[in-house]
Structures are given as C-alpha cells and as structure tokens.
C-alpha cells in the first residue's frame, strides 16, 4: 500500500513536470483587447532552447521592455510539439494576453487554438513560420523560406560556373513546412526538380548534427563523385561537413546552408560552408512587439505576410549574387558570441 501511494506521488510529479510549459513571467487580470491601452504580449516559440528561438525571445523581451509592454514567453518542449503550443496559447489567454506572437511548430497543428484566441479578440501574429492557410493568423512576420532556399541554390549554381551539379541533399524533418519551402526553393535556385538525375541522393536528419553526419557518410559510400551539397540548416551542415572532411572531399564541393547563426557564419569564415543564407529573428520579434503595442493603443491590426528578409553570407562573392562577407555576418548573426 505504501509503495502504491508513493508510486502515485512520483507519477503525479512526473506528469506535472512533463506537461508543464516553461513559464517566464506571469501577469494577472482579464483579457484586454485592442484599443484599451497597455500591450500584453505573449510569445510562443517552438522550443525554448534552440539559439534561434532564444534570440527571438530575447529580442521580443527587450522590445517589450523598451515599449512598456508586459511580456511572457512560453514554448513547446520540442520541435513539432503542437500540443504544448496549444496549451501555451490557452495559458496566455488565461493570463489576459492581448497579442500572441507564435512560431507555429506545424503550419496546421495549432489552428484551432489560434482561432479561439482571435475569436476572443486577441491579435495573433505568426513569426518565422507561416500557417496554412496564411489568413489563419492576422499577419505573418517571417523569412520567406522559399526565397532563402532559392538564394542558396542560386549561389551554388553560380559557384559551379556552368559545370552540371552532382548534388547530395541533407533535409530536415519530412513534411515540415519550412523544410519543404527551403528544399523546393533551393531546387528552383539551382535549376533542378526533385526527379532530376543530377540529385545523387538525399537524407533526412531531423535537424540533428550526428544524424546528418551518419546520413552523409552513408550517401558518400554510394558515390563520392559529387560537387554540391544542400543542407537545410547549419547544424546539419556541420554534420555533413564532418563526413565530407573524413573523405577528403571538402576542397572540391560547394556546400550551402541556411540560418545565419553565429556559429554558421564562423563556418563560412573558416571555409567549411561556401555560403549560408542569414535570417533575421530579431527583426521578426521587434516588429511583432511593435505591432502589439500599436494594436493595444489604437486597435489597428497588421495584415498579410511581411518578409523580414534573408541575406547570402559568403567570403567568395560571385557576380550576379548579392551577398555580404563573414565580417558583416558576424555583426548581424544571431545566437552565440559575436
């Protein structure tokens, strides 16, 4: 009997620990909608550990402080944690947020919760990742991931100087919106389609550096006769680089990546990546908070897709490709020490 009740206590503690979201700050009070004065901004990120979302959260918090808005940040527990994000939205509404900024884990997974929030008069802005349909939220402030992929593809194509590509692709999570947009954007930029024979293989590595390294090792076993590598983000690019390096292939391969994290820019500077495409999470967060303040004051809501831009970072600039060097990149990168 004693053992059973102890088990129950531990089980309850575990459940509490695993179901709770990370709460940064609470505020009391009822739901305040637009035009009533003070902005109460809630941010829901995919996770609270990825440096990208850390930068986004820090920038949002700083912007909220600078503009006299209340701020609270919640997150899902892992990339793809729709349920955690739904709970975060519900918690924020309970706390009386009048604007919710969200980086949706999936473009469709949290739509019902978003609709409930909007029905209650809350301004909902998607950051970083668009919803499907796009008008499920009031507005989207994000990188155009298709365009970012296209920039990477165009750079790799230009870098090959007319030599037909022999390409290996390191994708992220199958079915994720951002991944799909970057992937198809890249193929458009380099001038290929999914069925092109120039694609010598692909692996999906879930954003995990060690899985990317394994996948690349296995692909290279099939053929080392390649000249180009697509990586969907920088950690996976580093994994792919380790596999290429072990085969002594890095000198004759053009590897592009996307993200613009400080470590990734450093990889460009060291010559591991030929180029990376930088995103600007800080802009997304700041513009989101400013929109929330505006909404609280005047009741005016933003609308539509606002592209926060992306920039090619490379130390080997090519004609026809607009780019910045790694020194500029290190000044504008996110996460980490600059």
């Amino acid at each position, binding site marked *: 009997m004693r053992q059973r009740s102890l088990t129950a206590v531990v089980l309850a503690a575990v459940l509490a620990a695993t179901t709770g979201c990370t709460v940064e700050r609470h505020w009391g009070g009822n739901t305040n909608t637009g035009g009533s004065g003070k902005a109460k901004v809630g941010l829901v990120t995919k996770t609270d550990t990825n440096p990208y979302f850390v930068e986004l959260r820090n920038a949002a918090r700083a912007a909220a402080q600078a503009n006299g808005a209340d701020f609270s940040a919640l997150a899902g527990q892992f990339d793809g944690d729709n349920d955690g994000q739904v709970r975060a939205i519900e918690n924020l509404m309970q706390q009386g947020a009048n604007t919710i900024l969200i980086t949706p884990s999936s473009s469709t997974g949290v739509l019902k919760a978003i609709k409930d929030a909007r029905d209650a008069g809350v301004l909902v802005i998607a950051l970083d990742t668009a919803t499907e349909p796009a008008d499920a939220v009031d507005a989207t402030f994000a990188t155009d991931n298709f365009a970012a992929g296209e920039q990477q593809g165009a750079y790799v194509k230009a870098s090959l100087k007319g030599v037909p590509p022999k390409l290996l692709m390191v994708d992220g999570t199958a079915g994720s919106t951002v991944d799909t947009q970057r992937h198809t954007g890249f193929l458009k930029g380099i001038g290929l389609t999914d069925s092109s024979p120039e694609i010598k293989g692909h692996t999906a590595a879930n954003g*995990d550096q060690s899985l990317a390294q394994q996948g690349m090792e296995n692909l290279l076993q099939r053929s080392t006769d390649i000249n180009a590598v697509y990586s969907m983000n920088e950690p996976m690019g580093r994994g792919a680089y380790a596999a290429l390096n072990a085969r002594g292939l890095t000198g004759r391969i053009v590897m592009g990546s996307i993200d613009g994290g400080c470590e990734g820019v450093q990889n460009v500077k060291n010559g591991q990546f030929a180029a990376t495409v930088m995103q600007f999470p800080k802009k997304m967060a700041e513009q989101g908070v400013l929109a929330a303040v505006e909404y609280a004051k005047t009741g005016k809501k933003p609308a539509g897709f606002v592209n926060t831009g992306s920039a090619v970072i490379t130390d080997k600039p090519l004609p026809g490709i607009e780019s910045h060097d790694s020194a500029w990149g290190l000044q504008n990168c996110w996460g980490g020490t600059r």
Partner: protein
Amino acid sequence: MSTKERESLGEFLLRAPAVGPALALVVAIVVFSVATDTFFDLDNLSTVVQQSLVVGTLALGQTLVILISGIDLSNAASMVVATLIMAKLAAAGTNGFVALLAGVVLTIIVGIFIGGLATRIKLPAFIITLGTFTMLTAVSKLVAGGQAVPVTDGLLQWLGTKRYLFGGIPITYGMTLALLMYLGVWYALTKTAWGKHVYAVGNAPESARLSGIKVNRTVLSVYIVAGLTFGIAAWQALGRTPNADPNQFQLGNLDSITAVVLGGTSLFGGRGSVLGTLMGALVVAVLRSGLTQMNVDGNYQDLATGALLIAAVVVDRIARRQQQS
C-alpha cells in the same frame, strides 16, 4: 521439421540468445553486399561500426539494467548532460582529463540516484528513470543555455580522431574501447559471481534473496556500472561529433533499448547477453547504411527497424513458450 527438433531449436535460442541477432547481422551484410556494389568495403564496414558506437555503448549499460528486469529511460539524457559538462569545462580552459572525469562522475551519480530509489524505496525502474529522463533533459537545456558547445580539446575528441589500420580496416580508438568494454562486461557476466548474481536477480529476485544473494547491492552495482558506461558513451559521442548539443540523441534511450531487444535480451530480465546487444546495435547501423545506399527513404528504414524489433520479441516469446511446455 518434427516437434522435437523445433523444441530443441527453441532451447538452443534460449541457451545462446546472441545466435539469432548474429544470423540477422550476417544476412543483412550479405544482402546489402549483393544488392549494392558499395556496401561491402572495408572503409564502409568501419564507418558502420563507428556509427553504432554511441548507441552501442549506451546499450551495453542498458543490457545490464534490463538483465535485472529494470529499464533505463534516462541513459541518453544523462549522456547528453555529460557531453555538455565535458564541453563546457573544456571550453572554460579546464584540463581535458578533468572535464572527462566530471562528466563520467555525473553519470555515475545519476546511476547511484536511480539505484538508490530502486533499492531503498522499491520504485519501479520505469517510473524512476522516466522522472530522471525529464529532469536530465531539462538540466541539459539549462546547462546549454540554448547553445551547442563546440569541442576542440584533443582528449575529448580522441576516441574519434585517432585511428590505425588493422588488416586494412581503419580502427578508431573509440571502436577499440567499445570492444574492450564489451569484453569486460561479458567476462564479468559469465565468469564472475557478480554476473551470476545479476542473472539470478533478474530471473527471480525472491529466490535470489533466499539463496543468500544481496539483491539490493547487486541492483545498485548494476546501475553504477551502467552509469559508468553512459559516461563513456558521452566521450564516444564527442569523438564522433565534437559538438555538445542538447538537441542530439533525443531518441537515444529508445535506440539503446532497440539494440538490447534485437540482441535477444529478454525485457522480462534474467536472459540475454552483451554479445547479442553488440549484434543488435550493429544490425541497426547496417540496416541504416545499406538501405541509404540503396536509396531507400528514411521512413521505410524506420519501418524496417520496427518490424525487426517486433520479430525479435516474437522469437523471444516463442522460445520461452517452448521452454515452458
């Protein structure tokens, strides 16, 4: 085949649980060597072994835990915290050996914590390690502060970077260390009194207690030894990928259980071997490598691994039933 012969096959599998996974491994290697002209290559075989090192080392400790009919859901999380501590200390200028030691001490402390709860308060291992897993995952994210930590220290990378040729096959020190660890645990399990106690406790703890075995002490020692292997798995992980990242190995706990079960160790405890686990870890890596080289989509690779896992459990069940009848 007559019933009698079939029964003896079941008995044979029970006596030598590593035989099934060894057969599966050989079949997989033969199939991929025939199906592709790239798989059977000494460099590739070495790569496949290197790919299985981290999960293989996690699975070594997991085997011991499962042999005493426990389970450890927190092993990979404990390993990830250890990689972060090693990397952070090294980045702060601490001597590599001290950093390594700090990580290993941490995983051993986690082992003592789990073993202590399992023996003193008699909580089920599943619950203890589920809670530990959740806590350690949080700790790794707190320690990392949203940042992966690159590792440049020579000793921390040593298992992956240093290699020599053995009969034309590139061997890393990581592979050598894993082999020595497997041999050591195999020896301890089969040739020492401690090993006999581990099997006895897993089979029937009450009978073990009545026959004079100190059950609690055996259970605690298993979690401590397992903790040690998880610390070394962290070293292996930094050798493979010199970058400590809280988002890596999120499924490492389940991967290690997969290797153990594929290796013929019974989830009900008391039956199994570390040699089987070695085969189990290698089978998974061989499947991944071979199927990737055949250009098979990753989702189908997961499908195949899952089906093989269920097949392994079915074989275990049939063997047990034949033993009972």
